[in-house]
């Protein structure tokens, strides 16, 4: 084990982590638990811990070799490996070859940087795993310390103090009355020709003329346009009525064409 100084760090003591693989000393047992790792970083951390050195002094080359060996053997045992384990294996193989290259042929980023990055990630994961273990080991409420079993409870009864004033009250009543009062529709005074006057006008005009006449010719001449509309409607109904009574006949050659009207002599 590495020489340690008097500051905290993130290495694992051998007995402080009961995670997967801790008891698996035989390779075989380890492989069968490959599923148990949460991804390649997890497996790498476990392997790193087996080097039993401070994570900051770990041999990345050795770690890479161990990882690649495991993956190879897992493949030999025909264990199905998740893709990310294989991706990591390929990347580590690349890292290894780069680390072994002569210095002047090194690519960018440098293999040292890549190795350091991996190391830093392992340190951080280890730190959090350690922190989690320490957190779980605290005196936890409901497990180690207990709250009162049967608290009486504090009840706060909210009592409403209702507010309303005179005006609001009276206004509300006014609104109810206004809303529910019977509605009266005022119809504006309009110039109209009643059906009765149209009937007498049309029938008297038919009496003096036996030729076909267009309905329009029965309307009062020079009438106000509004009266004219009313007269047209009334005269049309009057014409229908006269036809029904057998006093007139109607003819229209085309839709919307002029409506022709002729009296029938009794």
């Amino acid at each position, binding site marked *: 084990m590495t020489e340690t100084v008097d500051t905290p760090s993130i290495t694992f003591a051998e007995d402080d982590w009961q995670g997967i693989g801790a008891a698996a000393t035989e390779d075989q047992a380890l492989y069968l638990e490959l599923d148990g790792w949460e991804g390649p970083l997890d497996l790498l951390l476990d392997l790193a811990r087996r080097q039993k050195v401070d994570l900051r002094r770990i041999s990345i080359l050795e770690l890479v070799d161990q990882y690649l060996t495991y993956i190879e053997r897992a493949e030999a045992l025909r264990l199905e490996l998740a893709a990310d384990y294989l991706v990591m294996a390929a990347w580590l193989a690349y890292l290894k070859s780069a680390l072994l290259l002569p210095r002047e042929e090194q690519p960018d980023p440098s293999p040292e940087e890549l190795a350091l990055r991996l190391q830093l990630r392992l340190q951080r994961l280890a730190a959090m795993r350690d922190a989690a273990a320490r957190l779980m080991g605290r005196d936890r409420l409901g497990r180690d310390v*207990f*709250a*009162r*079993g*049967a608290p*009486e*409870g*504090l*009840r*706060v*009864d*909210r*009592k*409403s*103090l*209702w*507010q*309303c*004033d*005179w005006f*609001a*009250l*009276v*206004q*509300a*009543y*006014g*609104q*109810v*009355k*206004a*809303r*529910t*009062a019977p509605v009266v529709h005022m119809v504006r005074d309009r110039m109209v020709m009643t059906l009765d006057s149209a009937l007498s006008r049309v029938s008297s005009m038919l009496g003096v003329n036996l030729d076909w006449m267009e309905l329009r010719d029965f309307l009062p001449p020079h009438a106000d346009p509004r009266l004219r509309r009313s007269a047209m409607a009334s005269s049309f109904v009057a014409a229908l009525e006269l036809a029904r009574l057998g006093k007139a006949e109607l003819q229209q050659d085309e839709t919307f064409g002029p409506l022709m009207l002729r009296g029938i002599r009794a």
Partner: protein
Amino acid sequence: MSRPDDLVRAVEATLFAATEPMSAEAISVHLGGAEVKAALAELAEQYRERGINLVERGKRWHFQTAPDLAHLLRREREEVRRLSRAATEVLAIVAYHEPVSRAEIESIRGVQTAKGTLDVLMEAGWVRIVGRREVPGRPVIYATTPEFLTHFGLESRRDLPGIDELRAAGLLDPVEDALAEAMEAAGGAEGEAETQSGDEADAD
């Protein structure tokens, strides 16, 4: 304050965490057969004048709030709340037409009235049930209370303005819904807002 001995501490913690009062025997069993009577007596004495007491009831022990502090367990908080528009309308109808049944209120308002609305008015102390109408179904009939008159500063119900006066004051003019709502919103801004939209919403 000195540290109590371990047995006293154990009994104290056990009773504190227990969900039910425990007999001395049950505590003893829980603590591996220790003799706990003396510890219970000591604890009871230590807690005698505190905000919580250790008491024995029917041979079973438990902690409870000191009797003189029982009022702390249940407090009332008063909140000023403005009456909703629906409730105000119902109150006005009761005031103008009393005694009146709920069905009559609804026919005057022209909308259904939630049961809760009348409850609110009764909770406020302004409306009460004064009997039943002797018609089929014997519906309950409501009227206003003396507190209602007091709150609204009225000598009697006759002080309420009549229809003609309301008309003269413009209070019978139809108010656009939007305007009514705007007034409602503006009024509701002060105090606890009773959010509602439209006539059917009732105070809960």
